[in-house]
């Protein structure tokens, strides 16, 4: 039973993807219908897995040769993320019915979305590192193909390529780690690895640990690999919500959380994770406050919020990271889909062109504000509880400087959240837009997410039972409280007060920004730096440029002259002879 459910949660969306890939674009209504049906069924199937959580391997197929066994284990962490991927995937597909109305190539769009959902569930459910990498790369492909969905737009093509190349480059770290594990243990099984990681030589384990960190940072858009995420905003908005906010970008956090017990003892690793998390959280918030594109603002805030999760793993609070992951997945999907409704209505992503939309789109405004409250970490929506828990754990187990930066980041988050809401929904309308509030399918997707933002924190106790019950290697790192315990814990912790004060200061700072006008000169430099992405964009361009230059230079060696080619043969033969003599 469980094994069929596990397989179907991967293969049902893939079957849908196949059908839609073969479908004709002349029947768009049918395509919408089929895609939603498959997405809904996948969501329901994933929910059915909840009571079946187990630490046993339920599927194991011998792949032969050096490919090990293809195994799947639906433990608490896996099923938790499966549900998030499938349910938010389902809502994103429903949202797309309105958002993608009248677009061409719907078959390609929906088949890639469903392929993605299946890959994501496969990635979290498998316990073979080979398959982990396999699904990891498939997600990267889907992400790339969907970012470049509007292939006629050069920006979309460039954004897709950038995302693909950067996440794949990071993936090399994951690949190296998986290969090392196999060469020492003779298996790709993650459970076995967690049990026997201490038997690996120290250098091998640290290559693995840092390789996985690189892979995770690239996938979760963490500094210094974060630059692909803003470019990914060229994707249709439901894709940004699903892949680039709620699910795929969490894969890095999942990876770190999954392997934390094995790597925690590697010297310098936890510090490195904390540094990556803090830098991303803080720099992401600074960039978000200067951005003027609505989706890019949300993208920077995703980088920043993922930084909080990474930081939580770094200080050893695996549970807090997953709890924040849940909150973030829900409220960020809500914010992106809300932004999608706005963009769909006004036809631009530039917040400077918006303003005063609140009256015309009351429904979207209301749900968007709920999402913003959670993003800013204001009581008592889900983002508040999880962010406070992360900060509290950080203060207790992490270095103080990191905590201070994270709290400042929370203040900045509050400021840019308020700025975003104000620029979009309030103030004076910059342009006359003939806008309408969200249509039915969009509302169907937004309402559950808004509700979820208000209440998912009540699931804290349930989540801790789910995780503690089936993750034997993580038990000592979970610090998982029950719901009531969490409430008491957070409300009485001094860290909460500090955070609330800073958040309030952030809100006030933006509200009374005119008072600080004299400071704007001083702020110009950091703002310029943030606008330039702190030089990381420049670094990307240098790397790409020098690679292309090397290509151009090498092309010169293909001269087309026969005598030159003959010289290559003669010269090569002499070089080979030299090497052979050296070895004899």
């Amino acid at each position, binding site marked *: 039973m469980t094994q069929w459910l596990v397989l179907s949660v991967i293969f049902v969306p893939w079957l849908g993807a196949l059908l839609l890939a073969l479908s004709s674009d002349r029947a768009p209504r049918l395509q919408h219908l089929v895609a939603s049906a498959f997405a809904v069924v996948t969501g329901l199937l994933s929910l059915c897995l909840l009571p079946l959580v187990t630490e046993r391997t339920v599927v194991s197929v011998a792949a032969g040769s050096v490919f090990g066994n293809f195994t799947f284990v639906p433990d608490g962490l896996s099923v938790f993320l499966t549900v998030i991927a499938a349910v938010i995937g389902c809502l994103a597909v429903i949202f797309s019915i309105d958002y993608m109305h009248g677009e061409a190539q719907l078959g390609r769009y929906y088949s890639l979305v469903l392929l993605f959902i299946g890959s994501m569930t496969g990635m979290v459910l498998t316990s073979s590192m080979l398959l982990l990498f396999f699904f990891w790369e498939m997600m990267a492909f889907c992400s790339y193909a969907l970012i470049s969905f509007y292939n006629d737009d050069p920006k979309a093509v460039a954004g897709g390529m950038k995302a693909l190349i950067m996440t794949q480059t990071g993936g090399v770290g994951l690949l190296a780690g998986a290969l*090392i594990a196999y060469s020492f243990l003779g298996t790709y099984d993650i459970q076995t690895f967690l049990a026997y990681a201490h038997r690996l030589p120290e250098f091998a384990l640290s290559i693995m640990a840092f390789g996985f960190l690189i892979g995770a940072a690239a996938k979760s858009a963490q500094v210094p690999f974060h630059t692909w995420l803003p470019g990914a905003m060229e994707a249709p908005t439901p894709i940004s919500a699903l892949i680039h906010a709620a699910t795929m970008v969490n894969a890095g956090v999942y990876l770190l959380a999954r392997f934390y017990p094995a790597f925690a003892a590697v010297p310098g690793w936890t510090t490195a994770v904390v540094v990556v998390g803090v830098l991303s959280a803080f720099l992401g918030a600074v960039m978000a406050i200067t951005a003027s594109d609505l989706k890019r603002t949300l993208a920077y805030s995703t980088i920043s919020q993922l930084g909080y999760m990474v930081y939580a793993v770094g200080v050893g609070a695996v549970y807090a990271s997953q709890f924040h992951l849940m909150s973030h997945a829900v409220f960020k999907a809500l914010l992106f889909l809300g932004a999608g409704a706005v963009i769909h209505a006004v036809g631009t992503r530039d917040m400077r062109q918006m303003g005063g939309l609140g009256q015309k789109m009351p429904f979207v405004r209301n749900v968007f504000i709920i999402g913003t409250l959670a993003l800013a970490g204001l009581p008592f929506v889900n983002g508040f509880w999880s962010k406070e828990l992360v900060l509290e754990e950080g203060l207790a187990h992490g270095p103080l400087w990191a905590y201070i930066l994270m709290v400042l980041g929370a203040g900045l988050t509050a400021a840019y959240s308020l700025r975003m809401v104000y620029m979009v929904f309030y103030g004076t309308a910059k342009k006359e837009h003939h806008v309408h509030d969200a249509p039915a399918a969009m509302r169907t997707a937004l309402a559950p997410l808004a509700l979820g933002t208000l209440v998912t924190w009540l699931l804290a106790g349930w989540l801790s039972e789910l995780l503690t019950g089936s993750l034997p290697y993580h038990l000592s790192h979970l610090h998982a409280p029950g719901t009531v315990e969490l409430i008491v814990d957070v409300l009485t912790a001094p860290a909460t007060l500090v955070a609330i004060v800073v958040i309030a200061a952030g809100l006030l700072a933006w509200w009374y920004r005119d008072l600080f006008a004299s400071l704007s000169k001083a702020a110009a430099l950091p703002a310029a730096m943030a606008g330039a992405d702190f030089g990381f964009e420049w670094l990307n361009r240098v790397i790409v440029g020098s690679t292309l230059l090397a290509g151009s230079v090498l092309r010169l060696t293909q001269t087309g002259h026969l005598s030159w080619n003959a010289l290559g*043969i003669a010269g090569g033969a002499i070089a080979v*002879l030299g090497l052979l003599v050296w070895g*004899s």
Partner: protein
Amino acid sequence: MYYSNAILTLVVTPLLSAPLIYLIGRLFMRTGRAGAASNASQLASLLALAGTWKAYIDIVLQFNRSSATALRYITGSVPLQVDGLSILLAGLALTLGTLVVIYSRMYMRNEDGEEKYYAMLVAMTGAMIGLACAADLFNLWVWFEVMALTSYLLVAFYREQKASLEAGVKYLVQSAAGSSLVLLAIALVFMETGTLDLYRIGASAVGTPLMLAAGALFVAGFGVKAALVPFHTWLPDAHAQAPSGISAMLSGVVIEAGLVALLRAISALMAVTLSWGVLLMIFGALNMLVGNLIALKQTQVKRLLAFSSLSHVGYMVMGLGIALHAGTAAGATGGVFHLINHGLMKGLAFLAVGALLYALHIAKGSHNPLTISDLAGAAKRYPLATLALSIAVLGLGGLPPLAGFMSKWQILVAGVQANNRLIFYLVIFAALNSVLSLGYYAPIVNAVYRQKPSAAVLNGSSLPLSMQVPMVLLLLAVVVLGLWPGLVQWLTDPAGNAIMATFGGY
């Protein structure tokens, strides 16, 4: 010994059929009906290949039943042997040869001298099978030369086209120069050991200066055909200018046959030097880097694919080098697995590009090259061909769930298992190269799925069924092998073991 007949049939059928195919085509040309000659010679080719297939299946069954690592059979002064590597190469050559014969039905229609085309194609397939089964150095050279001769004619098939002539001339001169180096190397080995038999040479070879020189000449000579950098300069021209079915054969199996010939030759000289593994790994790294970087800047699709073949030869050579250096079969198995996968994927890529080239240019009598911008928006009119092309190039780029991912994985596993710091760096380098290669594969996929079609696509003609069938078959193979790599383990494991066995019985 029952299998001796099957071996003989396998090797001889295609070669003997080739002149018959030509004659049948000529005869039917006399009838004067349009298409009669091409239909007749195509049908004859298929019959000849069917006979070869039967012998091949016989051999495979015999081989699997016997416990020997190689079936040997000597007819007159020609020793033949079938081991895992022969079966693998012969199977790949037959598969691609058959599919290309089917594919060429409409592609080559209206060309002058179709009967020659089919005869040469079947002869080339036969030569590769013979090469796979050769057991002495000189016969290896003869098969190699027959393969080269047929491929010269096929590359320069469009003899009215200047570019095609130029490619043919360069290919002929460089390849012939290479094969004269091989011949000199064989003479040197013969001088030193007094025999041409691979096994007996292997038993007595030591590192004398003459043998070292012979080794270098083998690498350079066969390296020309196997497209090792810096012997590769003919390849982009020849592969891009040949008729697309031939490009698929050249990239998918001819350069691999060159690699197998190289392996056979140096396996006999294994004891001459310690640096064979290092040498192959250096060539692997060079090929990957040069192929990928030059491909990044290409605008013509076929030329781009030709450069990508360079980098894929690099992967195979790297796997083999790891195997020789570390003395484990894993790298060799991965290398030959990649050999199969590359044959299927690159074959598919060239067939798909050829189909689009046919629809956009050739059917209108134009011999313009197909550029990436020509492909814009092709998906709407040619969903199958563009899907095939996308799957093929993404598989070449090593994305799952496609075949290329699994074979690259196997090679990299072998590299890490070698437990050597430098080889580990090479593994990382290879993985990064795989990422780099997406930099030129992905734009092709982007182009075909654009919504605004190019002028060429708007005026394109339709695709015949004879082109679609081979593409569908290869497409399925590429996806299935990506999901279930164990499916060809019966081919790759014996081939890997055969390589290790010929290299001195690890």
